[in-house]
């Protein structure tokens, strides 16, 4: 069996799984899996750029995804003029002051001769700057958060079309990645892993606590949508005529067509990114990245600037994750900082890349779809297994109830087992890279 036949077969298998869900469960479920599968595939493409191409151990995917979600809020929500009037200036001035303090401290570090004096000057700048920043910034934050806290209490967004949030999410994540990469990329692989893990937690802490930015744990609901609302479709006589003519119930048809609309948009993004990643992989740049991954010292000896290339690919991969994050928040229609959990948004993406095949873009896409399908379907399957196993137990027995209740946690267990099995028996993944 040739390689391309095997790969096509694998993709066909995943398609079959999703279509099968449509027949067995419902088309709604199938489309939900498809939509999140498309987004997961983009995330795993982003991680594959970093890990598969360049060997960067990034376990901060969650942070970049959350930044993408933030972009969706900042771009698409309408601005809150009262909040801007109350404290917008102070918040902006505070942020600028904070940035200026950091720049000043950096200048002092770079320009002054090493010694006691330099340490002293830096301490004065940092400590004094910190209190000045808090003074200006806290006033603004308080004023902004006091403006109708039940409904707004934040500065709002720009009120632009939500599709624009996708590239902006990428840019935001890229900006964060630039700062992080400057500080952490020189580190060894396990240090980089801990550093990115920590940064993701910090990004989440900021999103949860800075209410002026995106309402923190109060969440932002009702983001604008790039596709029509179901209700509008049901009230549109043209649409109702068309679907009843095809023999569908208008309510089901409207929810299906909205999901299909999302799927089409996501598919376009996925195809564009996949195409670019594939071109990059086969370009001289891609060969250089792989050379660096396989032997850093040799690549450096050949005159390649390893640090710069690492920074570059770290930013690119993070930007892709940010785009996917913005898309996911658009699909959900709401931004919920507490829903970001490292197991789901960092380590699950890792499972996708490893299972799919690190270093191979098609592998990453396949892994994204397959693992997402399993993540969703393991729960009902686990419930079914447990029901069968506990069938002989008497109704209402404590053990039976506990087991059935815990079925939801089967998915973590299953993901771990899948990851370990793939690492053991097919360490290069389903579609191995070169």
């Amino acid at each position, binding site marked *: 069996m040739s390689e391309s036949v095997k790969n096509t077969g694998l993709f066909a298998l995943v398609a079959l799984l999703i279509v099968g869900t449509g027949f067995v469960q419902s088309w709604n479920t199938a489309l939900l899996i498809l939509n999140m599968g498309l987004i997961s595939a983009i995330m795993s493409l982003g991680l594959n750029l970093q890990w598969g191409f360049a*060997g960067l*151990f990034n376990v901060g995917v969650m942070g970049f995804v959350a930044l993408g979600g933030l972009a969706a809020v900042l771009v698409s929500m309408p601005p809150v003029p009262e909040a801007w009037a109350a404290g917008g200036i102070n918040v902006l001035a505070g942020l600028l002051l904070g940035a200026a303090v950091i720049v000043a401290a950096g200048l002092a570090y770079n320009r002054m001769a090493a010694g006691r004096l330099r340490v002293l000057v830096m301490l004065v700048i940092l400590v004094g700057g*910190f209190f000045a920043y808090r003074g200006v910034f806290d006033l603004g934050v308080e004023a902004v958060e006091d403006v109708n806290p039940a409904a707004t209490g934040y500065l709002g967004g720009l009120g632009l079309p939500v599709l624009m949030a996708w590239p902006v999410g990428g840019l935001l994540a890229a900006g964060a990645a630039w700062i992080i990469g400057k*500080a*952490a990329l020189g*580190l*060894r*692989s*396990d*240090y980089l*892993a*801990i*550093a990115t*893990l*920590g*940064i993701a*937690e*910090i990004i989440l*802490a900021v999103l*949860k*606590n800075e209410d002026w930015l995106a309402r923190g744990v109060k969440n932002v609901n009702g983001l604008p949508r790039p596709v029509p609302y179901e209700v509008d479709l049901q009230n549109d006589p043209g649409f109702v005529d068309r679907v009843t003519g095809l023999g569908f119930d208008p309510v089901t048809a409207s929810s299906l067509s909205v999901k299909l609309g999302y799927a089409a948009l996501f598919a376009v993004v996925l195809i564009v990114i996949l195409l670019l990643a594939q071109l990059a992989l086969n370009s001289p740049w891609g060969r250089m990245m792989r050379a660096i991954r396989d032997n850093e010292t040799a690549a450096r000896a050949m005159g390649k600037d390893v640090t710069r290339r690492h920074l570059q690919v770290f930013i690119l991969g993070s930007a892709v994750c940010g785009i996917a994050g913005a898309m996911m928040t658009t699909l959900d229609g709401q931004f919920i900082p507490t829903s970001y*959990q*490292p*197991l789901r948004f960092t*380590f699950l993406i*890792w*499972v996708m890349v*490893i299972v799919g095949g690190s270093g191979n873009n098609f592998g990453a896409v396949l892994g994204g779809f397959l693992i997402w399908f399993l993540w969703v379907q393991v729960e009902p399957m686990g419930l079914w297994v447990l029901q069968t196993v506990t069938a002989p137990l008497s109704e209402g027995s404590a053990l039976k109830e506990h087991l059935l*209740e*815990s079925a939801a*946690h*089967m*998915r*973590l*267990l*299953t*993901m*771990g*087992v899948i*990851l*370990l099995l793939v*690492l*053991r028996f097919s*360490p290069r993944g389903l579609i191995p890279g070169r």
Partner: protein
Amino acid sequence: MIDFLNAIVALSNFVLVPAVTYGSQLALGALGVTLIYGILRFSNFAHGDTMAFGTMVTILVTWGLQAGGVSFGPLPTALLALPFGIMACMALVLVTDRLVYRFYRDQKAKPVIFVIVSIGVMFIMNGLVRFIIGPGDQRFADGERFIISARDFKEMTGLREGLALKTTQGITVVTAVIVVALLFWFLNRTRTGKSMRAYSDNEDLALLSGINPDRVVMVTWLIVAALATVAGALYGLDKSFKPFTYFQLLLPVFAAAIVGGLGSPLGAIAGGYVIAFSEVMITYAWKKVLTYLTPEALEPDGLVQLLSTNYKFAVSFVILLIVLLFRPTGLFRGKAV
């Protein structure tokens, strides 16, 4: 003078005692991470969940003992259950090593492969714990709540500020001291401990001199399981047990191990206290202490809190970055794989 004493007591009550307790818990966790790094040569991402598993068994046995009417007088029943937790955790890590890690050790896989494998183990252990005990919050401390309560302290000394010392805090510190003393005695005085240090320093030389690597690895896992369970149970007694919190402990524990220097047991302990003290001090509202120390006219209006407590992860992380940038091998020279 009285004001000064009041300030000291307030400082001890809200900063020193909690920080020493938390630091001891982190130090025990970091010792486990550092031992694995030193001897098995990888960063074990599953360590937080190993702690959770040991603690979970301890909690289950505690409940069993409580139901059977067994108690430990004024001390928490969990201390009686601890040995069972440790044994269960030892069994789990030995099985994991046999089924998972040994294969890669025989292959001499790269450290980064081990890290990815440990992510898989993390998923499984996390799922296992949630499956057995559920994702919710569990409290299992019983017995006396306080060694000295704030009110007793005020009555005893006549000061305005009280110094409360919880039983769990006392137990944490005492247990940590005993465990660390035992560990260092073992590593420095016994034959097996010395062979472990030799293996950590230079694997090839250790093998040449006839040290049995399988035995070293097994003993390491046993010690790590004991340390993880003790650390987890103490943390759970002091605060509460929740699988997700234990997973998140991974970050401060690793920060402690790296700040101290990965592979150095002494560094892990120092790192634990450095991280704990900075977290508590930077997120503490200093108003109370400062009010006693400054003349009335200069009293601060705000809370004088540098960062909100929600940013405590940020603190451990920033310290980690500073140490990595300026002293990449940690405070006590660690090793680099």
